């Protein structure tokens, strides 16, 4: 009896807070995507050769957890087969958030493009439900002319580059 009670409480909590959090997250993602529209992300491996660029490796990662309700409904769908929509939206959220964080990092470098973007997804097991980790990374391309114009950005790039190399 107590177990059923716990189950119901978890289900309601998961449903209410989970979908609220998801809605808010999607809203924020769409807002930020609009702001970041000027910075295209390209999956191509070959950079343009006509403009001189400064390259910089940028990355963004996020860990998102599924909620109790999502996990349970996913389990139900698993019995009958079909597309597991609760997890699809979770993965979508994770990927878009990771790309946005990567773009944030690239913006600091004054980048104009992000090249050769790769996405890496891993399932992280925490308890019975799952959480996923998404890592997005690519090469941010800052035009050398922009580097000259903005010395503070150059300083920021050099600082982050030297923290990696200390040379």
């Amino acid at each position, binding site marked *: 009896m107590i177990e059923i009670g716990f189950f119901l409480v*978890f289900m309601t*909590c*998961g449903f209410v*807070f*989970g979908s609220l*959090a*998801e809605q808010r*997250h999607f809203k924020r993602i769409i807002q930020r995507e609009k702001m970041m529209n000027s910075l295209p992300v390209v999956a191509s*491996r*070959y*950079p*343009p*050769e006509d403009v*001189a*660029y400064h*390259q*910089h*490796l940028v*990355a963004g*990662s*996020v*860990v*998102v*957890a*599924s*909620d*109790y309700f*999502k*996990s349970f409904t996913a389990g139900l769908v698993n019995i009958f087969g079909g597309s597991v929509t609760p997890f699809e939206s979770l993965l979508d959220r994770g990927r878009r*958030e990771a790309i946005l964080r990567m773009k944030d990092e690239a913006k600091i470098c004054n980048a104009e493009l992000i*090249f*050769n973007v*790769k996405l*890496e997804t*891993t*399932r*992280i*097991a*925490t*308890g*019975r*439900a799952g*959480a996923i*980790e998404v*890592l997005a*990374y*690519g*090469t941010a391309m800052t035009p050398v002319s922009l580097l000259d114009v903005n010395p503070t950005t150059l300083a920021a790039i050099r600082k982050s*580059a030297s923290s*990696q*190399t200390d*040379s």
Partner: protein
Amino acid sequence: MLISNLEILPDYRIVKHIGLVQGSSVRSKHVGRDIMASIKNIFGGELEGYTELLHESREEATARLVTQAKEIGANAVLNVRFSTSSIAAGAAEIFVYGTAVELEKT
């Protein structure tokens, strides 16, 4: 040290391919974080603790890659790839690898 996940860099010429360099890092958070994460699993949402954890491991793995590249006399690492895997509950491995090269500005 130039790190890039591109294979060809405009303006640069590869003088010498030195070899594969790698760096990896396995980290975990204290139990409190794990407990918080499992509670968060009921409600859903981002697990900030783990995001931070992966960020730290990424930095550490990259730092190790750079150290290795320097030891063998490279001045750049190209075609860098990241790979992640969960080793156990609450611990994650980040593995980063790439080709160490000697570059020359053209």
